[in-house]
């Protein structure tokens, strides 16, 4: 297997291609390596501060889970060479709508309203991009404002408390044994996302659309439908993330998710998904989100101020992305 990797030059002329393994490209694993290096570093230096304690590790997961959930859906959007800037504010809006519905009509109405919020916003985003060819950057930038504005308007900018225990338990606050509900949600979304991207025709078509839209269209891929669905899914998953915020903080509030779009995009790119489309990895995105959480946690334990944390975090992200960059020719 390894000899194939190293003898590439030699057998380039060998003629008929054979079904060998895909070649190893360490750049794809930068996020794994970075994760391990950072983890080891903090583990050694912050051992006394309790970095490796079970509770602290659970804390990291809890803090990253919601970003990771949104990053899974964003992986599809970016793989298709689109972008969704509205995820954070859709999460905020969905936290508010579901909170209002829960207090009026109960658990199921709350959950349904939250998801419906995502479906509606996603349909609008998707339709504007797919039908009318407006760049997703602009559509979702506009939607970011519309979603936040709506969330503030219908609540008079006040938090909406959620008193329904089952809602709070299922979305975010509860645990099964020692495992927090957030972690379970993250795992479900991750598993579904990974299988869909890697193993289904839809996933391949998303990658083809992002890699070369024209060639995908000439191959019978309905690229407009693909774009519609990636944006629909992104908003819907963002709405789920909003409900996780609502459940965890036992209230709906327009600020939930504020600014998350940048963390989500950073996690996806850090994970190795190509910003130009055509290549994506759900595993990478989730690890990217966890890596950002890990860094935040470690820096806090080190006693750095928030302002200093921001600087270090920014530098680490730039470094990791620079390392993960593919060679020339493939962009």
């Amino acid at each position, binding site marked *: 297997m390894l000899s194939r990797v190293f003898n590439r030059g030699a057998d380039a002329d060998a003629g008929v*291609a054979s079904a060998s393994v895909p*070649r190893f490209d360490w750049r794809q694993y930068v996020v794994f390596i970075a994760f391990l290096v950072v983890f080891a570093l903090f583990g050694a230096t912050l051992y006394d501060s309790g970095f490796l304690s079970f509770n602290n590790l659970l804390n990291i997961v809890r803090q990253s889970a919601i970003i990771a959930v949104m990053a899974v859906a964003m992986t599809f959007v970016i793989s298709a060479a689109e972008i969704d800037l509205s995820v954070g504010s859709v999460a905020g809006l969905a936290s508010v709508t579901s909170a209002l519905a829960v207090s009026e009509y109960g658990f199921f109405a709350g959950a349904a309203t939250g998801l419906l919020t995502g479906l509606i916003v996603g349909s609008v985003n998707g339709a504007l991009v797919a039908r009318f060819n407006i760049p997703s950057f602009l559509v979702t930038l506009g939607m970011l404002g519309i979603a936040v504005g709506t969330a503030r308007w219908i609540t008079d900018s006040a938090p909406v408390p959620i008193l329904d225990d089952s809602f709070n338990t299922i979305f975010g606050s509860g645990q099964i044994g020692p495992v927090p509900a957030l972690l379970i949600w993250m795992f479900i979304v991750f598993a579904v996302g990974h299988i869909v991207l890697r*193993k289904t025709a839809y996933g391949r078509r998303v990658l083809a659309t992002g*890699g070369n839209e*024209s060639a995908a269209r*000439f191959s*019978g891929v309905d690229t407009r439908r693909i774009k519609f669905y990636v944006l629909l899914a992104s908003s819907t998953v963002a709405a789920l993330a909003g409900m996780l915020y609502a459940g965890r903080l036992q209230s709906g509030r327009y600020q939930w998710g504020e600014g998350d779009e940048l963390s989500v995009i950073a996690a996806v790119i850090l994970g190795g998904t*190509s910003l130009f489309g*055509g290549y994506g990895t759900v595993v990478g995105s989730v690890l990217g989100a966890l890596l950002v959480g890990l860094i935040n946690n470690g820096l806090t334990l080190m006693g750095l101020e928030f302002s200093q944390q921001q600087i270090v975090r920014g530098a680490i992200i730039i470094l990791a992305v620079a390392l993960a960059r593919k060679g020339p020719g493939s962009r």
Partner: protein
Amino acid sequence: MDGRTVQIRSPQEAQENGIAMIFQEFSLIPTLSVAQNIFLNSEPRTGTKLLDDRQSERRTRELFAELGEDVDPKKTVADMSTGYWQLTEIAKALSRDARILIMDEPTSSLTKTESEALFDLIRRLKANGISIVYISHRMEEVFRIADRVTVLRNGRNAITDEVSNLTLDEVIDHIVGEKMEGAFEWREREVDRTGSPLLEVKVLSAAGRFRDVSFNLYPGEILGLAGLMGSGRTEIARALFGIDRVDAGEILVHGRSVDIRGVRDAMDAGISLIPEDRRLQGLVLDHSVKDNLLLPLLKGLQRRGVVDDRRGERTVGALVERLKVKASSIFEPIWLLSGGNQQKVVIAKWLAAEPDVLVMDEPTAGVDIGAKTEILDIARDLADSGKGIIVISSELTELLAVSDRILVLQDGTVTREMHRRDVGSEEELHRAVQSV
């Protein structure tokens, strides 16, 4: 250079040594004007170091006058025809005092008349002491304008000699490396046109693209579409494949009327298209041979919603072997393959879809002669197995080599239909295409 050893590590250093290259894919910025493009990164400045537009426009005019053309320097490049793009590239090279011009497939996007103008220009440049390295797949051009020819094969120098010492066959032998088996030679094939046609196109029209196009295609037949750029050849192919809509007319496959509104409909009707632009429309360059090949087939490879990769890899392996695609593995990114092998992958991806009608738009553009003959043989084999093939090509030699029947298109309509055996020579077809 001039007997001195020079080091060339960047395009700037090449430029300093008087070497300029005219790229196959033009390296102009479409949104800038002619003058802005020519003086990009070497703009004339005024005394206050600001850009001197008046001077750059005046010098642009002078450069074009040298080339025997009159061009508005303020015109945006995107608004001009490709012939002028190339002129602009050449003017840009001359503005930097280039003494060696490297032209890579300069006629590939030019019309016949534009090519003739380019040849005239090359002669004039030559007379002014400028040396030209002319890279081309078209032997006819090499023999017309070159003084000496070098054939490269597998990265090695196969032969360098005066053109006058060589014949076309000798050059082709050196390119192929072994005796060609007359792939460009036409062999009459038996086509049964008494049965029902595979494909019937009835008075198909699309505003501004083509009108009243009618023809039949029979099983086992290769139909050539000849015509100049813009004559409607590609537009008809795109309409048959559901890329563009038509305004009127009917398409029948196996005698049944089909309504083609999108690529999926065309595929369901058994029609496939090898598109004109391999890199833009045929392939996802960053993706592997396997992923490219399976893209149209994903629907059929699904089992309980999941793509059966094992079966996909077997399909790919078999096709890659059948078409002799040279790649180190099916997981190799497609941009690492040569043009000919890339094109074979595009063909393979449609073979697996098992279409009844295969439309090939410029199937051998930008591939070497060896791959060219292989591709023509694939077309023949497919026709022999009862499929209907439509071949579109600007290279008439190629059309004459494979077609059983040829439709000549002009300004969006079919002006002539010729049976291959009635076409005496390539000149005859040339005249029909140019309508002289």
